[in-house]
């Protein structure tokens, strides 16, 4: 079946002429039509556009062009602006917003010949860890439709797990790629902050947001990241450094790799989860890696730090949604203040409002020093902890989440418990580090994720280590039943 093939295999079939991009696109569109209604992973399918892009890709190939992503279908998280296509960010606020331009990520993948099948559901403005805050309703986990897929890139993760596309894009502000990747059994890559342009990616927390990819394997993700990464003059925080050939280093042997076991990650870890991670470490040891225990003393403060920094930035980033120039506007505003209050009050959901209020509070006169400034200091300490750790080890290994996917509705009335779901992923965002989550086994029939974190711009070694693990284990090839 076409949807079980890797990007490389699909590329070979397209290259040999056995398969056209239009056929491949039809195949995935049919899967979306059949499987998406129960998943709610895709909120804006774009079949006509996709078939048009596929036909163009076929013509480009016929004209002699090659490229690993040429003619391969994807689904974009609805946080990326797509020219001429609704870009809702999972919010009623942008339910009517047709973007007049492409995000840099979208433009780069388009240039590489990617075919967009549609836009993926997500937590509203990427704020959530379960994909339940979406205006378009929750996404279901293909492994168990009563469970959440994680978030905020829940639609992207579920779509990748159900093979509704060859790969999907996501964004990760506090774990929004890695956590849903873990809960749906796919490979999720969050690059170094600054590696991929944020231009056209609707901002949640600017100093933390980073675009990445969700795919079946590290090898597939490497091909996609290759096309996404690189300096963008339109994003001042993107880094002007060459992009190494990620695919070329996948096969590098791991002999001598120093893996750091974070003491803080293993303290209090649920025994079945801990067993899976230990198994994974054994795989690495067998592959020639050595392990070193390291400590990041400030890491336990990462969740509270994150829940000051991220809301602070979001409270300002979301001010532009005021009902004046685009997006939702309340009916019959009495005056300017009424226009602002009701457009925002009706356009935003509860979690977004909670974070805007938190952020407004921590930036307010009299609270700024105690919250925002202190959080920035702790953030610096966490970054320094990681730096010290990477002087001793090449990569850090640990779990992605504390538990497997939880039930839809189970944590919605308890934001703090929900926030704690990101306890293992947030550190990498605060320090701007690249991270990967990949499947490493199951608990109660639900997939669990193994997380690797690398030093700044360590995507190459990270993907190499993930690929070697996947070659040795095959967990990433497990598929939810009904989606084989």
């Amino acid at each position: 079946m076409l949807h079980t093939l890797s990007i490389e295999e699909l590329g070979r079939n397209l290259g040999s002429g056995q398969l056209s991009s239009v056929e491949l696109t039809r195949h995935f569109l049919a899967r979306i039509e059949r499987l998406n209604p129960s998943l709610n992973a895709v909120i804006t399918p774009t079949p006509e556009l996709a078939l048009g892009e596929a036909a163009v890709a076929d013509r480009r190939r016929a004209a002699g062009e090659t490229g690993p992503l040429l003619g391969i279908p994807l689904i974009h998280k609805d946080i990326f602006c797509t020219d001429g296509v609704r870009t809702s960010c999972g919010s009623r606020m942008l339910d009517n917003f047709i973007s007049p331009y492409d995000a840099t990520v979208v433009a780069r993948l388009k240039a590489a010949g990617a075919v967009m099948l549609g836009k993926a559901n997500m937590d509203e403005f990427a704020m959530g860890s379960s994909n339940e805050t979406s205006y378009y309703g929750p996404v279901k986990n293909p492994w168990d439709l009563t469970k959440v897929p994680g978030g905020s890139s829940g639609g992207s993760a579920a779509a990748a797990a159900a093979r509704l596309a060859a790969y999907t894009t996501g964004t990760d502000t506090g774990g929004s790629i890695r956590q849903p990747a873990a809960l749906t059994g796919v490979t999720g890559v969050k690059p170094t902050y600054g590696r991929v342009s944020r231009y056209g990616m609707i901002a949640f927390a600017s100093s933390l947001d980073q675009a990445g990819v969700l795919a079946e394997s590290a090898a597939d993700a490497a091909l996609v990241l290759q096309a996404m990464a690189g300096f963008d003059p339109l994003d001042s925080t993107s880094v002007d450094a060459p992009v190494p050939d990620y695919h070329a280093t996948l096969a590098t042997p791991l002999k001598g790799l120093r893996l750091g076991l974070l003491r803080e990650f293993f303290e209090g870890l649920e025994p079945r989860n801990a067993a899976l991670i230990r198994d994974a470490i054994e795989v690495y040891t067998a592959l020639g890696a050595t392990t070193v225990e390291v400590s990041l003393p400030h890491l336990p403060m990462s969740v509270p730090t994150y829940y000051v920094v991220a809301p602070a930035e979001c409270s300002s980033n979301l001010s532009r949604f005021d009902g004046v120039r685009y997006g939702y506007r309340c009916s019959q505003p009495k005056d300017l203040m009424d226009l602002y209050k009701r457009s925002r009050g009706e356009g935003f959901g509860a979690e977004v409002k909670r974070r805007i209020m938190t952020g407004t509070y921590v930036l307010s006169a009299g609270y700024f020093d105690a919250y925002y400034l202190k959080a920035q200091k702790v953030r610096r300490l966490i970054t320094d902890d990681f730096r010290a750790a990477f002087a001793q080890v090449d990569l850090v290994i640990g779990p992605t989440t504390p538990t497997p996917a939880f039930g839809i509705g189970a944590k919605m009335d308890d934001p703090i418990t929900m926030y704690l779901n990101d306890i293992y992923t947030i550190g990498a965002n605060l320090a701007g580090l690249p991270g990967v989550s990949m499947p490493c086994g199951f608990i109660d029939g639900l997939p669990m994720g193994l997380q690797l974190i690398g030093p700044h711009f360590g995507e190459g070694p990270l993907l190499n280590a993930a690929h070697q693990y996947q070659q040795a284990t095959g967990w990433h090839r497990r598929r939810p039943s009904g989606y084989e």
Partner: protein
Amino acid sequence: MMSDWEVVIGLEIHAQLATRSKIFSGSSTAYGAPPNSQANLVDLAYPGVLPVLNAEAVRMAVKFGLAIGASVAQRSVFARKNYFYPDLPKGYQISQYELPIVSKGSISIVLDDGAAKTVGVTRAHLEEDAGKSLHEGLANASGIDLNRAGTPLLEIVSEPDMRSAKEAVAYMKKVHTLVRYLEICDGNMQEGSFRCDANVSVRRRGREKFGTRAEIKNLNSFRFVEKAIQYETARQIELIESGGTVVQETRLYDSDKHETRPMRSKEEANDYRYFPDPDLLPVQISKDFIREVAATLPELPDHKAARFAREYALSAYDAGVLSASREIGAYFEDVTARLGTTHAKLSANWVMGELSSALNRDNLEIGDSRVGPQALSGLLARIVDATISGKMGKEVFETMWSEGADADAVIAAKGLKQITNSGEIEAVIDAVIAAHPAQLADYRAGKDKLFGFFVGQVMKATEGKANPAQLNELLKKKLHSGS
């Protein structure tokens, strides 16, 4: 009593930087385009867009910092100033807050009595302008024009060093001169390219503690600055003397009614929640860059004035007027170079006198003068070599101005050549004396004032062509010789 009180003034000047594109987007900054025709997705704050700093704006701010002897920060940070307003599309203004690009400079001004004073400049920081709300011609609606949104501004904040409305105006004029010298701002006040907010407070003379200040917003002419401060000073004194207290508030100056009024308190009850803008990296400025910018600095007004006074033996006042703009200074130096430095005073008098009034009358900038430096020096050369008198020169100048001809052609056409032949002048003098025996007798009896009468008669007879210096000398001799 006014004299028991001292007013304390600080100004925040907003100078629009003369970059071609906006501070964080590629849109044009040209003035006067149809509404919203110069607002791109970044200016409109579309979802997902990001700011990119215009390097030219940074260069201009550095130039200003160097020109006022300030320290230029090696690292400065853009911050977000958060508030909601329809002309502010992002819901925040990008400005500099804790770490401005320029700090601790100073500017010298000359007061009416000729005394010099130094005004401290606390800081100058880069920020973006907001758009404009439009109300005219719109029934039951407000329009928003975002052409100005994102235009680069340099906000220049003074110390509370000024003690009168006149000092404040002198300071503002000096900053105006400076930004135009540096070619970082066109200084056009009608178009809002140069405007200020004035912080005004009063205290009893001799007290050290400042009074509570009011901030008068958006003053866009020197005259309004002076009037608004005068009004506000009087208002505060009257208020305190009648038992009231000044409240810290933002006020607007109404130039029609000549008064300041408080803005609605709602608009100022803002907590701006400043924090560093995570979309922009800190601005890093290297010593090399500072050296590079320093090398492009023109001769600055104070330096030019001092040099003029020294090189051309001009008074401090003349030197100050002639260095008020680069163009005036260049014009004066061009004329003087052609004429010879010994005639610098003549050249200065003409540039500040006839030329300047003709320019004012026709509302022209010196660069558009109808009589250029070459033509003016041609005219002055004829005065120097006594072909014509200074008075005749004025007539020639008017014709040159209106007809565009050169001095020699006008002199020839009008037959204005001065009589410098002593014999010829003496003959006229003799005839005048002979015709006025009574006046002669009175003069000789001690009525010195009649000397002017004789001069007038001779000039009348020669149609004003007698060389005045020669006439004076010869007439004196004749009037005294006969006795």
